[in-house]
């Protein structure tokens, strides 16, 4: 995608409906069985993506809900139903998990491939929580392709300390660690997109 930020998105015809907080009581509605398992743990390329979400005091947020959306390991964006009723084989690219009592989350997924040559691969993340009046979007970049990261237009537009909040850490066992800070010194960079209003 070569579109640059000086192109102008067309105006909207309708005004979007406002968002509201997810609140605390979504427990029977939104989480679903194997919601965090984009692939089975036994999958040869399975990778754990995990981390902690914290508030402005650095305290864990125990009632957030997170969603990821990503390409498969070859960089293909798939369009397959079955996320809510996992068959254990079909990669749908979508996952949803509530965090645990100490604000920790885990997805089992694969490293997304680059969707275009030389692009830095990333996972899209959406954050919902009680106290958060509207959803937040961010990106989880893989740490390995340093050249692609250096050329990424979003990362290049950020200061070093802010940029690092979007790049996951690869742990010794191959897991990806990505902590989310809603507020404060290490606040995660959250994103807005064209055509939101």
């Amino acid at each position, binding site marked *: 995608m070569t579109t640059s930020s000086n*192109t102008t998105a067309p105006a*909207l015809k309708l005004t979007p409906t406002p968002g509201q*907080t997810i609140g605390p009581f979504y427990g029977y509605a939104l989480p679903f069985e194997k919601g965090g398992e984009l692939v089975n743990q036994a999958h040869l390329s399975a990778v754990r993506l995990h981390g902690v979400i914290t508030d402005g005091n650095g305290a864990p947020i125990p009632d957030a809900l997170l969603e990821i959306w990503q390409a498969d390991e070859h960089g293909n964006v798939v369009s397959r139903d079955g996320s809510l009723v996992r068959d254990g084989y079909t990669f749908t690219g979508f996952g949803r998990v509530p965090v645990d009592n100490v604000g920790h989350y885990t997805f089992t997924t694969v490293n997304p491939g680059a969707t275009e040559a030389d692009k830095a691969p990333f996972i899209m993340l959406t954050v919902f929580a009680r106290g958060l009046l509207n959803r937040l979007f961010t990106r989880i970049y893989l740490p390995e392709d340093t050249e692609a990261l250096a050329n990424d237009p979003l990362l290049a537009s950020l200061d070093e300390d802010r940029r690092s909040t979007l790049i996951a850490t690869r742990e010794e066992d191959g897991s990806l660690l990505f902590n989310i800070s809603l507020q404060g010194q290490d606040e995660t960079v959250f994103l807005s997109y064209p055509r939101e209003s």
Partner: protein
Amino acid sequence: MSTENAIQAAALDPAATADSQETINAEITDLHAAYRQTVLDGAAVETQPRINFAPYRSSLLRHPTKDLHHTDPETIELYAPAFGERDVHALESDLTIQHNGEPIGERIVVAGRVLDGDGRPVAGQLIEVWQANAAGRYIHKRDQHPAPIDPNFTGVGRAITGPNGEYKFTTIKPAPYPWKNHHNAWRPAHIHFSLFGTDFTQRMITQMYFPGDPLFSLDPIYQAITDADARDRLVATYDHSITSHEWATGYNWDIVLTGSNQTWMEDEEGEN
């Protein structure tokens, strides 16, 4: 700024839930007046809630303080997950038939369409709802409000939108319920809605309210939408054409997502 700090300091105090409704009302009034002045001075009309809205005390430590960083969507962000019949059974849109008996309360039908910012129907996409029962109680371990649980009502539904973006849920009208934001705080009756579009950047969770609720002006979550016209967009309309004879009253509520970036960015690619 010092007032804001004082509000923040007070809110971090565990005793802050002793704030009166009058205190909350005064804060809301001030924030709304300041917003209207910015519009008079030429600022853009706000269409979404503030994420930093101190009268909603839980927002204080849970909102980013830095501006959202504007970015142009890349490939994955121009698409959305797919859902279909495999994911959702047709009966899941009726919240009144999930148990052995009929739930207590006023049976209602909520119907409408999901559109994108260009007015195009969002077809074949997932829509999820959850709500309190007719006594204002959720099925949830953290809901300790001493109102009765209804063994015939879980308050959870799902549907896949039709070819014109249409949806329809049969349910029970939820009641208001108390919460701990301040002393004697009550939420207006509402149904939570979760929505997907054609681009994942259109992902949204919101709440639908009922017309004429006397709790609107007292509720810091609803009033976090500073613009009156924007607040109205969350209120369903009573619709007698949805009401059915001797069965259920009907409400209409259409939902508009943000604009898709897929089409125009692809068109632009083609021109380059």
